[in-house]
């Protein structure tokens, strides 16, 4: 390399080491998704605080609703806990779920999203991989919240198998719902606005469901809203699984809710992803 009078030896990178034109074979869809999942896992390792903070709300709701309202709602706090816990498990994954949108939006605003877009890779892997990486996040949170429930007196009749089945279903539900937050993360201007939207959308969605009470006592129009809410169908499925009395109709309802979220929001996210190059 030509020597420069301005650079000292320390300033000069080892020129030869920089150069390599060996280009490995382009990785497939699975390998690409897995690499992005690995990235999501690294983030948990480096920044576990976000994981801890995601337990707080579900735990608070469990305590408040069980001890404050439980007796009035179900006759005794113990009975209400049996009813509430499956709903709290759904709420747990929903509350973590919105971080999907915040992380994606952070990637976009910070610029690393452009680096990924400038690579010759399987592009849906960027979004799908992040969702896969959250599997561990959900698993940890679900175990923590379930253990708390058991300590308070939650005794699922479905046993360990029923609870594991519920966890499995919740992972699927979270993956499908995550695409909604991907879409939000792609459209909104900043991570803060994703956060604001999530609290504007999530609380009404969680309350207008059967997480806390059954819609039987609600006015007809509200019951209709509750029954159309995908969260309601997820909760019903989880209740059935943990109680060990899941009907095939309830399971179908839960799976249709997942499918509906996926079919609407995954293509929408990929459309918005491509539209990034137009704005």
């Amino acid at each position, binding site marked *: 390399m030509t020597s420069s009078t301005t*650079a000292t030896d320390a300033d000069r990178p080892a020129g030869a080491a920089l150069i390599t034109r060996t280009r490995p074979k382009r990785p497939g869809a699975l390998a690409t998704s897995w690499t992005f999942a690995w990235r999501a896992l690294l983030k948990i390792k480096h920044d576990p605080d976000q994981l801890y903070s995601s337990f707080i709300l579900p735990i608070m709701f469990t305590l408040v609703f069980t001890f404050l309202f439980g007796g009035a709602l179900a006759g005794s706090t113990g009975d209400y806990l049996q009813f509430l816990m499956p709903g709290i498990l759904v709420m747990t994954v929903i509350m973590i779920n919105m971080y999907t949108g915040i992380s994606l939006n952070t990637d976009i605003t910070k610029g690393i999203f*452009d680096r990924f877009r400038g690579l010759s890779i399987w592009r849906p892997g960027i979004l799908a991989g992040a969702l896969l990486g959250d599997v561990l996040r959900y698993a940890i949170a679900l175990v923590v919240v379930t253990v708390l429930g058991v300590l308070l007196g939650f005794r699922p009749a479905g046993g360990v198998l029923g609870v594991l089945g519920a966890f499995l279903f919740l992972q699927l539900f979270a993956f499908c719902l995550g695409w909604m937050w991907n879409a939000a993360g792609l459209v909104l201007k900043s991570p803060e606005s994703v956060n604001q939207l999530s609290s504007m959308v999530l609380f009404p969605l969680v309350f207008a469901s059967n997480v806390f009470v059954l819609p039987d006592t609600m006015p007809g129009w509200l019951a209709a809203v509750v029954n159309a809410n995908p969260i309601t169908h997820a909760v019903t499925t989880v209740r059935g699984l943990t109680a060990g009395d899941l009907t095939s109709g309830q399971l179908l309802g839960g799976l249709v809710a997942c499918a509906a979220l996926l079919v609407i929001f995954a293509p929408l996210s990929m459309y918005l992803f491509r539209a990034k190059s137009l704005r």
Partner: protein
Amino acid sequence: MTAAEPAIEASGLVKTFGETRALDGVDLVVPTGGVYGFLGPNGAGKTTTVRVLATLLQPDAGTARVLGHDLIREADEIRARMSLTGQYASVDEQLTGSENLVLLGRLLGFTKAEAAERGAQLLDAFDLADAAGRQVKTYSGGMRRRLDIAASLIVTPDLLFLDEPTTGLDPRSRNQVWEIIRSLVEAGTTVLLTTQYLEEADRLADRVAVIDRGRIVAEGTPGELKSSVGSGAVHVRLAEAGQRSEAERILARVIGGQVHLAAEPDALSVASSDPERVGAALVELSRAGVAVSGYRLAEPSMDEVFLALTGHPVEVDEKGAEEDAA
């Protein structure tokens, strides 16, 4: 792609953001090999042009071939052979330096072991080995920028876009970036470099395009641009400041044109491309008893070139604020 084919050939690129016409018909031919400087003030369209050519942004009109591939239909082929280091460090702040490079290495198809080895090699070459295990959010600006460039070189690209790579860097970090660019060019990579620093374009670039308000207003080697603006100038320093008005009269008579009085009371200059005239003028000064303590013939600076081409001086923003809405 044949050797004679340019690295980039763009014609009539248009991009509008709402009311703003960020690119207003950009025509550009960047030859293969060497450094191509892309110069212009904030908001002129530099970043938008780079984002379009790097396949991140679709133009509203116009066509381009990059590395022999059509910009729209063969974007993926282009992506496989080019890298972009944007104005802001596009690395993951939560991850360590090493993890960032392994992540990108694996996305390119290296195994975990290969990616780790290549990452370590680059961190070493970029003087970041000591910080390899630290989260990037603890890095200084210069370290981030070096990591960002390293991330673009995991496989040496045939074409590298560097969008204001030295904005906001201290002189030592800037020298390091310059050296990296020179090594890459020697290895055969074509570098398209945007900058607001005229000196940088002057020192690094083989050819320069000047963009202003979304249009290319001049193109050529730095030398051609300077001579297209016309003459250089003679700068004269007097032994006694009190004789400046007399010196001004003599210079105006012998050389002609507008004599410029410098801020220092003993200095003045006048544009001239004719060394003989300048010599004659110095003789006249001496005859008239005006003592000259020094003089200098200078080419026009890139700043003067820029002023002449665009009609307004370069506005340098030290913080490297966002150039446009892109």
